[in-house]
């Protein structure tokens, strides 16, 4: 299935509220923890970290992978995508222990696969974001079986995906844009330009601020909730 931009969508620009450097090396995705005390950040080197709200490492999981690119968390578990090995690794959020992993096969380029993971509440399924060639999202059942695949047009790539207040948001590294999607059919609703080089991770904090993670600069950017909301 191919879905595209609605005719009314247009691109607007966000302005940075705050930025700070993280000491997580080669960070590739970020999610706000459900206790609202900090972030989970994964790295290209296959590590899962917990950080405080300023991106300083507080914990590191013992179990490592190859090339972590996506992370999502609920109250109990942390879900991590290992792009190169096409695996989803599940960690215990409380103990940081590795629990199990699932394979979701995909034969595209090694480094153009699962860049993000989130849960689509509206359709009660997990969603994996495929970076490019083609840019698409994959729906997974709650036991990580493939349910369907949807092409996303008018976007060069996806570097992160998250679900917030009944909408899906995808981040594009090459376009330096956030795109808001309808979670029921993945059609585009709005777009925002972000002034961040190499944005690799995105999430929302408990205030509804948009958090963007830059791999190249190793920085975390926070965008004003009001400036973001006015364009919604």
């Amino acid at each position, binding site marked *: 299935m191919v879905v595209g931009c609605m005719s009314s969508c247009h691109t607007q620009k966000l302005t940075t509220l705050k930025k700070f450097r993280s000491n997580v090396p*080669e960070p590739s995705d970020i999610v706000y923890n459900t206790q609202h005390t900090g972030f989970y950040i994964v790295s290209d080197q296959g590590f899962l970290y917990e950080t405080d709200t300023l991106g300083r490492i507080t914990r590191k999981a013992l179990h490592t992978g190859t090339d972590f690119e996506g992370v999502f968390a609920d109250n109990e578990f942390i879900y991590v995508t290992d792009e190169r090995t096409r695996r989803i690794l599940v960690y215990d959020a409380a103990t940081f222990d590795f629990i199990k*992993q699932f394979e979701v096969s995909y*034969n595209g380029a090694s480094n153009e696969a699962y860049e993000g993971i989130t849960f689509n509440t509206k359709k009660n399924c997990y969603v994996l974001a495929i970076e490019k060639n083609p840019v698409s999202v994959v729906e997974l059942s709650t036991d990580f079986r493939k349910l369907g695949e949807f092409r996303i047009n008018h976007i060069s790539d996806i570097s992160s995906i998250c679900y917030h207040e009944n909408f899906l948001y995808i981040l594009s590294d090459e376009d*330096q844009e956030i795109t808001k999607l309808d979670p029921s059919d993945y059609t585009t609703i709005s777009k925002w330009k972000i002034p961040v*080089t190499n944005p690799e991770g995105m999430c929302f904090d408990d205030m509804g601020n948009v958090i963007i993670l830059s791999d190249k600069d190793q920085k975390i950017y926070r965008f004003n909730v009001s400036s973001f909301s006015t364009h919604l």
Partner: protein
Amino acid sequence: MKLINYTAMACLTLCSCHVFGQTSFTNGVNSLEISGVITAIYKYRFLDSSNPDNHVGNNISNPLNRKKNVFNLNNARLNIQGTKGTRWSYRVQADLAQLGFSSASGEFPAIADGWIAYKAMTGLRITLGYHKLPYSANSNASLETQPYWQRAEITRGGIFSRRDVGLTIKKSFLGERINLFAGVYSGMGEYILTSTSGGDNDANGKPEFIGRLELSTSKLNYNDIYDVHKTQSPLFNIGINGRYAERTKSLPGLADYDLKIVNGTKKTIGADAAFAFMGVSAQFEIHQLIITPKGNDTIRLQGKNTSHFNAGGLLAQLNYYQRKYKSGIYVRYDNLIPNDLIQNNKEQTLSFGYNYFMSGSKSMLKIQYMDRLDKKNLTLLRQSDEIRIGWQLVF
């Protein structure tokens, strides 16, 4: 109905055109990827009829020699690379377009890569095999990212080798903002895989040594230097590098200028700098070769009372990428002095380039025009302006 069918077919064709991707396999621990790149061009030389060298048989009474106006298969590369666990990686890359030439002594072999690498710890990588040498940022930027069909004379592999068999150790600090390279190689460069050397070293058995240090304000990636990602904060990087080789035998007649393998000692030092911001980027490189020939090398030393001569050159390029129009425009100045003991021996070229990125660098049109600034100097090797137009497809 027919119109709808044709429209649907056109849409499908257009969509499929935007999907270019490698194929990979994994068992959860190891991974293997197959990819490649094909580049095909047409090149045309603007010949000056008053120059005898441009005529058949170098005789001005004969017709112009237009043999260089031709279609070329520049590259037909097949690449297999993979990882074994988290520490080992490997790559085998062959350029099938070179196969037809490699039966002769050949300047470049059909093998472009054949190496294994071991990540000993975070930030420490050891590479063994035939691979790109850690010398010159431009040389290390990949073929697919080059806006021109031909690199600058100083970095295209005719003056110093760009690949060799050997060992490279790379240590990175501060998230690859500081990179330190040290390596030891056969010293035969690309010839180590051609019948020229037959896989043997020089009779003295000595290797070539190379070292490089680079500093960057952000994680350095040679392939990002043309800023197609539109860097939001200014990016600067600089590199300095040097290499040393001793040979007992020259290999004349294989590469232009006969500078790659020289009987004697060859010290090469170079520096490079790059800047990128909001789609505008610029690079500068300079290299100096100090060659001390052994024996009675009257040609290189020009019979002068000296033990050595210098060669070298530089490149400076300015680039602008406009994502909205999927286009990049480029201008480059480069020069080369193959031997400083010879007067009026400086080749200068001004190149203009245009790239149209149909699907990023995976499917793109490249146009390059080379203006030889000293075309009236008939003692120089390159005198004719040239245009090259072609397509690049990465699969």
